[in-house]
């Protein structure tokens, strides 16, 4: 059944009911009137009878009247009981005139017993004027504002309201068809209101969040509504995808000015996120010393997150096993953990105590697996500490690296540290003096914890700035190869002495190859994570070199400069080996896309093995 029909039915029913009620009311009213009229005629007799009763009760005798009253009492009760109080009232109201009459009537009644006595009596009608009801309405003192859309609103409303009255049980209000009542245009905010809103906390948070969304949405370069059938006059540079080219550079007016990039890295979980740690801003005293910014490749104008610290951040990395955490080591020796879900201050930090590092932490590495991982940090006083990420109050282990034969001091100052792939107990360090040592974390059969003093790597003449082991990326295993870079303008390739066969006597180890193409300090060197024979290095003149050992050994395959002449401090390959992030000393973070050369062919591994054999035979 259609709701309209049902509504009609119900409407009819209601109307019938109403009519009935009205009719009943009318009937009752007319009955009342009729009975009233009747009662006015019989009033005299009933009145008399009542008075008889009254008098008899007062006097006590007069059996005749009593009988009569008894007889006649039967009838008045049947006439109309609701009229009695009315009658009594009337009776009591005019006692004087009635008592006079009653005196008459008892005298008459015994004589005219069979016949009803008819006495004309004049009544004093008391007109009680209706009590005046004082009514008042509450009104507001302001004037009603006449809205321009009020007429439009009134129309549909008035039309719909009688409908609503008649059918209160309607499921769908008919107003659904009528246009929704428009709210009056909002009052414009005053200047003061605006200012207060603009500075309020909620508004700033809202603006931060929504402007990020909008900027990310605006940055989308692909127009999904392109019509490929239409001829396009745009000239598209075809070669851009193949060569090494710069994608973008990240910098922020507020946060990266006057700072230099101390470290950079990519996120394992989100391939579009990367971080950069910045050093102190010498121009400003009020700004925080250490800043770590998380950048998003899709949001080029501003950092995703801004993390601060009290001391210069010298090394920073995304946590491999926690997708929201960023770990940093500082110039003061503190280890800090920031959380992307929290505010910009570190959520955890190690105390500035003698238990941890007291010298700048320049190398940091998370080793282990998801459930059992440690953070290893090394500072320039030779202390290597192992930390649990949720307990930074004191390190789990502290290992002081000392070289017994070092005459100046026992300690060695570690500038870089690296672990071979999948190794957790032995590592290699590069020092400020230019030497490289192998070290063990624990005592093992045949070797003690600490520096392995027997193997001497005839390393660099200057400070070792970068040390990187070959990642395991393909069928062949080159994980004992490592590269070092130094301020003596060279990059050297070494084959590490196996840790499982510790040497018994002093041995000198020479590099496999030395790359001397650079003419400035080489600040960092890193293997490509996917291409076995490729690595990149950055140097102090702003040069970015990519070496492909399968094609050229002596010189880099590709060599680019950033153009600004400022030194490039750090280099990081992304997970797929497609892009590199370069941090420069003027605070800019460059992203370069390497195009085709970064993708290894299937025979690269075998080629590399042959190359290595060739290098070793030299």
């Amino acid at each position: 059944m259609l709701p309209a029909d049902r509504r009609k039915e119900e409407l009819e029913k209601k109307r019938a009911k109403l009519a009935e009620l009205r009719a009943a009311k009318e009937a009752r009213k007319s009955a009342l009137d009729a009975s009233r009229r009747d009662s006015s005629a019989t009033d005299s007799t009933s009145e008399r009878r009542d008075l008889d009763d009254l008098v008899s009760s007062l006097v006590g005798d007069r059996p005749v009247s009593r009988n009569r009253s008894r007889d006649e009492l039967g009838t008045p009760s049947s006439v109309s009981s609701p009229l009695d109080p009315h009658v009594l009232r009337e009776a009591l109201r005019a006692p004087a005139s009635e008592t006079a009459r009653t005196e008459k009537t008892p005298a008459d009644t015994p004589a005219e017993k069979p016949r009803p006595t008819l006495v004309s009596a004049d009544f004093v009608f008391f007109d009680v004027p209706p009590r005046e009801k004082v009514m008042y309405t509450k009104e507001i003192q302001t004037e009603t504002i006449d809205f321009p859309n009020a007429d439009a609103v009134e129309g549909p409303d008035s039309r719909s309201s009688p409908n609503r009255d008649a059918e209160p049980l309607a499921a769908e209000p008919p107003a659904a068809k009528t246009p929704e009542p428009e709210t009056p245009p909002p009052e414009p905010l005053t200047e003061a209101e605006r200012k207060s809103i603009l500075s309020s906390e909620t508004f700033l948070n809202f603006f931060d969040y929504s402007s990020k969304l909008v900027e990310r949405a605006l940055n989308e370069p692909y127009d999904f509504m392109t019509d490929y059938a239409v001829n396009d006059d745009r000239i598209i540079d075809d070669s851009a995808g193949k060569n090494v080219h710069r994608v973008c550079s990240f910098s922020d007016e507020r946060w990266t000015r006057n700072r230099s990039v101390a470290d950079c890295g990519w996120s394992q979980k989100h391939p579009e996120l990367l971080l950069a740690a910045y050093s102190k801003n010498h121009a400003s005293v009020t700004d925080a010393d250490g800043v770590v910014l998380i950048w998003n490749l899709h949001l080029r104008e501003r950092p995703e997150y801004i993390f601060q610290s009290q001391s210069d951040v010298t090394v920073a990395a995304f946590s491999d096993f926690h997708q929201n955490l960023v770990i940093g080591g500082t110039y003061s020796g503190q280890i800090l953990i920031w959380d992307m879900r929290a505010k910009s201050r570190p959520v955890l930090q190690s105390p500035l105590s003698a238990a941890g590092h007291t010298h700048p932490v320049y190398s940091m590495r998370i080793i282990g697996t998801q459930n059992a991982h440690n953070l290893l940090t090394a500072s320039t006083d030779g202390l290597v500490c192992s930390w649990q990420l949720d307990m930074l109050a004191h390190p789990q282990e502290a290992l002081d690296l000392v070289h017994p034969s070092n005459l100046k001091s026992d300690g060695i100052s570690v500038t870089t540290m690296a672990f071979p792939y999948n190794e957790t107990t032995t590592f290699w360090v590069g020092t400020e003096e230019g030497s490289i040592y192998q070290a063990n974390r624990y005592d093992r059969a045949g070797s003690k914890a600490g520096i392995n003093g027997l193997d001497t790597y005839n390393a660099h003449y200057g400070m070792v700035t970068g040390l990187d082991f070959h990642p395991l990326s393909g069928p062949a295993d080159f994980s004992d190869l490592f590269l070092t870079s130094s301020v003596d303008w060279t990059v050297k390739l070494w084959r590490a002495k196996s840790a499982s066969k510790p040497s018994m006597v002093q041995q000198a180890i020479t590099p496999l190859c030395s790359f001397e193409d650079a003419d400035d300090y080489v600040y960092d060197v890193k293997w490509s994570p996917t291409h076995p024979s490729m690595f990149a290095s950055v140097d102090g003149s702003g040069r970015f070199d990519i070496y492909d050992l399968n094609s050229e050994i002596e010189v880099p395959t590709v060599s680019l400069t950033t153009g600004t002449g400022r030194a490039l401090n750090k280099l990081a390959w992304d997970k797929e080996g497609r892009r590199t992030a370069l941090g420069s000393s003027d605070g800019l973070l460059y992203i370069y896309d390497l195009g085709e050369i970064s993708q290894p062919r299937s025979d690269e591994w075998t080629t590399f093995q042959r190359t290595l054999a060739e290098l070793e035979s030299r």
Partner: protein
Amino acid sequence: MPALPPLHSTSVPALPKKSLQKDAVQKDYADVEATLTRITSHTGVQGIVIATHEGSVIRSTLDNIQTQQISTLVTQLAARGKSVVRDLDPEDDLTFLRIRSKKNEILVAETKQYLLITIQNPNELQKGWI
């Protein structure tokens, strides 16, 4: 490294506040202005309007008439979109609304109290990104 107060100042030297309690990244009105200018200078962006849910304009980079029009119409549209989303799933809520027309694109980012409306011309975007 604590900053030394200036030697010859008459007023009480104020040491730089590096409070660890509250968030020291001071977001304030100046940053809002800077971000607004940056967004407006993006290729193709025609204007930005920040409004409340009722339609009152807090900030705008367009002229008055356009702002009024946009704020009333778009807030109503966003309210309608919000009601649609909530009707489909009562626990859902509208977060972002993007309307593409032949000439323009309207992006609306919405939270509980405010809306950020951006109008841009998407045909000016550059193609090609690896």
